[in-house]
């Protein structure tokens, strides 16, 4: 009965302002998303000379190379999903229902796994388990043979440890929010503990489990660095797209865009399948009688602790290795025995502009994301019209676009006038901006929906104009959320690799790109110290976000 009235109808200036925001939002989406995507589509139907052709698509389905990449992408996608689900749900169950000593340390390590700079993960695994890896060599010295980590199994192990936090953070939240009375009711009705888990607990956490799994799956099929470093001939769509684009001889933009399209389609399909699966399963419970954590004894207790610490350390290991290696003594690119700060002094001496680029690009894109994302968020939250739903739906597209695809699409769109931006800082900033914009829109829209219209109405009834009411009541209420969102966007922006890798030139090189190059050049000291700097930056941003939001690891997803 209470009539929901758009603020627009209350005074004269607002319709104009919000209409402008809507026009601006669509302009941004058209220029930065729809045109590049359209050109990707067009480009996939063209050959090198610009003639219309189906050759790219034909090659996709006939060439062994691309068919393999397609199959391999599905293998690492679902393999990574399976691994992340296994590790993540074990971790979630133990952390939500069993008393584990050092719980804060565990969740810190999960965060560390989540924000570890890309590539350094794969690299650290090579350091330990590669052909010349420390652990492998030690074991071989004891006469135990251990295959090097390269190939599909290596990729899957890395993915499992890299992506388990998605499943863990979402599922543990859901598990600790199940009303205890529900499980007690099931018990009371005569279900065995196993039946109870399968019939009550599992269906209730399924939405969280599938949402976490979807994130793991999408990130796994989009990941470029891990298969690139560990694959050794095991190629996926992301690496093939990059190869097709970057090959010194015979660079083939048409093939790169075709592969990119397949990646987008795949991600989209998975998003829709997950949404379809959990379409009914939204459970709200007002009365939370939180489940109690049980204290295990004896062997079970040891086993639970071992499992949790094994997973947490496995996930955080790359970051720890990077930090240790960053302070190893080096001579040029070669590690020497002992510790020293040569890697850091080398960064200060010659890589200052890389760090500066990273900070400048991330800072600028975060600023854009916050301002524009908040405005669009207000529009989506306050104007519940078909138009804002369409806007919201369109914003889902960059959400599932792999970085490598954004890079290739931007090259396709902005290589020539009227918008020739390749080689500029702007193109890198905008690529980060468009990928992270959906998060900012969603989080500010969610924050705004929390505030509720009666707050502003109360201020208006007390004599404040709608503009004043918005500034005095709504903005202060959503500000912590916006700033925290900005911090989390900064974490993604500063760690962004794959689109920058396609878009960078000598003068716009960023830290993640430099890490990638350094690893390829065997300059591990530089890679480790740059990674450590990234970790410190990310950690600081996350600390600030948690101070503002209250501690909620799920905000990181």
């Amino acid at each position, binding site marked *: *009965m*209470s*009539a929901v*009235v758009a603020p627009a109808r209350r005074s004269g200036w607002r319709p104009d302002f919000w209409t402008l925001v809507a026009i601006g939002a669509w302009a941004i989406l058209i220029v930065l998303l729809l045109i590049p995507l359209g050109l990707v589509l067009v480009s996939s139907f063209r050959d090198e000379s610009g003639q219309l052709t189906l050759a790219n698509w034909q090659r996709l389905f006939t060439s062994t190379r691309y068919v393999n990449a397609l199959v391999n992408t599905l293998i690492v996608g679902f393999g990574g999903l399976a691994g992340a689900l296994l590790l993540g749900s074990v971790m979630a169950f133990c952390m939500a229902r069993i008393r584990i000593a050092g719980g804060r340390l565990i969740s810190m390590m999960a965060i560390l796994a989540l924000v570890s700079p890309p590539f350094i993960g794969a690299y650290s695994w090579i350091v330990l388990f590669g052909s010349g890896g420390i652990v492998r060599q030690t074991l071989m010295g004891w006469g135990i043979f251990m295959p090097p980590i390269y190939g599909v199994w290596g990729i899957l192990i890395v993915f499992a440890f890299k992506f388990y936090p998605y499943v863990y953070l979402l599922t543990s939240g859901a598990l600790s929010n199940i009303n205890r009375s529900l499980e007690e009711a099931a018990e009371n009705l005569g279900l065995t503990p196993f039946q109870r888990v399968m019939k009550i607990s599992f269906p209730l956490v399924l939405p969280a489990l599938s949402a976490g799994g979807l994130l793991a799956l999408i990130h796994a099929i989009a990941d470029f660095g891990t298969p690139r470093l560990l694959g050794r001939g095991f190629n996926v769509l992301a690496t093939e797209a990059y190869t097709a684009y970057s090959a010194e001889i015979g660079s083939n933009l048409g093939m790169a865009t075709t592969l990119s399209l397949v990646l987008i389609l795949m991600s989209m399909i998975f998003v829709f399948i997950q949404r379809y699966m959990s379409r009914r399963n939204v459970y709200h419970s007002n009365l939370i009688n939180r489940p109690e954590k049980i204290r295990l004894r004896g062997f079970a207790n040891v086993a639970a602790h071992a499992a949790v610490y094994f997973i947490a350390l496995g996930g955080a290991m790359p970051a720890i290795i990077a930090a240790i290696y960053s302070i190893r003594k080096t001579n040029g690119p070669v590690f020497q025995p002992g510790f020293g700060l040569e890697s850091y002094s080398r960064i200060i001496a010659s890589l200052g502009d890389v760090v500066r680029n990273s900070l400048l690009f991330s800072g600028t894109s975060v600023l854009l994301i916050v301002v524009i994302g908040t405005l669009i968020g207000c529009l989506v939250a306050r104007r519940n019209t078909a138009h804002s739903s369409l806007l919201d739906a369109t914003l889902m597209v960059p959400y599932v676009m792999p970085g490598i695809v954004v890079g290739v699409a931007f090259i396709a769109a902005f290589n020539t006038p009227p918008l020739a931006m390749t080689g500029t800082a702007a193109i890198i900033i905008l690529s980060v901006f468009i990928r992270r914009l959906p998060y900012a829109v969603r989080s500010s829209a969610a924050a705004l929906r929390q505030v*509720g219209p*009666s*707050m502003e109405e109360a*201020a208006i009834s007390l004599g404040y*104009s709608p503009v004043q009411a918005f500034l005095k009541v709504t903005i*202060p209420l959503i500000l912590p959320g916006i700033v925290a969102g900005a911090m989390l966007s900064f974490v993604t922006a500063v760690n962004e690799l794959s689109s920058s890798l396609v878009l960078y030139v000598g003068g716009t090189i960023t830290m993640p790109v430099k890490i990638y190059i350094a690893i390829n050049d065997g300059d591990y000291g530089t890679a480790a110290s740059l990674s450590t700097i990234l970790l410190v930056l990310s950690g600081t941003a996350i600390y600030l976000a948690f101070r503002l939001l209250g501690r909620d690891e799920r905000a990181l997803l």
Partner: protein
Amino acid sequence: MAYLTVEGAIKRYGATTALNGVSFTVAQGEFFTLLGPSGCGKTTLLRSIAGFSQLSEGKVSLAGTDLLAVPPHKRDIGMVFQDYAIFPHLTVAENVAFGLKARKVAVSEIRDRVAEALATVRLSALSERLPAALSGGQQQRIGIARAMVVKPRLLLMDEPLSNLDAKLRLDLRDEIRDIQRTIGIAAIYVTHDQEEALAISDRICVMDGGSIEQIGTPQQIYGQPATRFVASFVGTMNLLSPTAFGLPDVPGVAQWALRPERLRLAEAGVAEPGAAGFTGLVEHFTYLGREAHLTVQAQGHRLVAQIAAPPADLAIEAGREIRLGFVRDDLHAFDAAGRRVRTELSA
């Protein structure tokens, strides 16, 4: 004398009509309640007066001036919200001072008036707290103080007690009534709780389906319901067919109605003049101490009876036969359209 006048208020949302030509007046200092089931248009009406919703047609004037031409923030109308709408980032005192600041009241005066308002709602001790730590009842007290302290021309309350528990609802109900009387402000109060409406109001406007069913004092609304809807919505009503229990067939009467408290135990078989008696089968018996409730099946009717001050030895088993009676003067009569009919039998 009319202070607030609403004339021919119509509100359409697309094809549905939320308000269908509503007119009423409220006098200075009057406590006026809009009562009705959810969806009856009462909140839409309240929000139109506040300015948060625009009428499709109709006029609203306050103290002789057209209200609809004034933007909401200049209407000087206080509002108390169902969900309290207390600003969580401001302390209790800052919440109450919020409207005074918009009016550029001097700092020292703000301090005095806030202190006075908080004393009125008995929250002085909590003035520096943040609202998150307070209970629902305390938050709604802030809401009342915040709306009253600016001395608005009119006070609107949108189901202010519906989120509170029963005991608190009774206490705060009396407090609201006392404060409103002390200040002497005209108030419009929206509720779906008929008991609350009866207890708090000078006059009640019962609404259904976007139209007014009846406007009157609590006594008129309960004692002489203008329509069958009002009769059943306010309190409980036993509806009887035209010739039930030996009642004469009066032309124009489609239905008789009788309040449960007008049915009495007639086991002694005393025949009063103008009384009707009948025998029924007890379905339920509920003993509540100060009264007892009976559900009885009789002559195809399911009747509810409330027996005041039931004797201590009164225990009636379900399935037992019982004799009940009523006085014909207590009957209400309604025509086929559900409107009240005056007959010689009924008042």
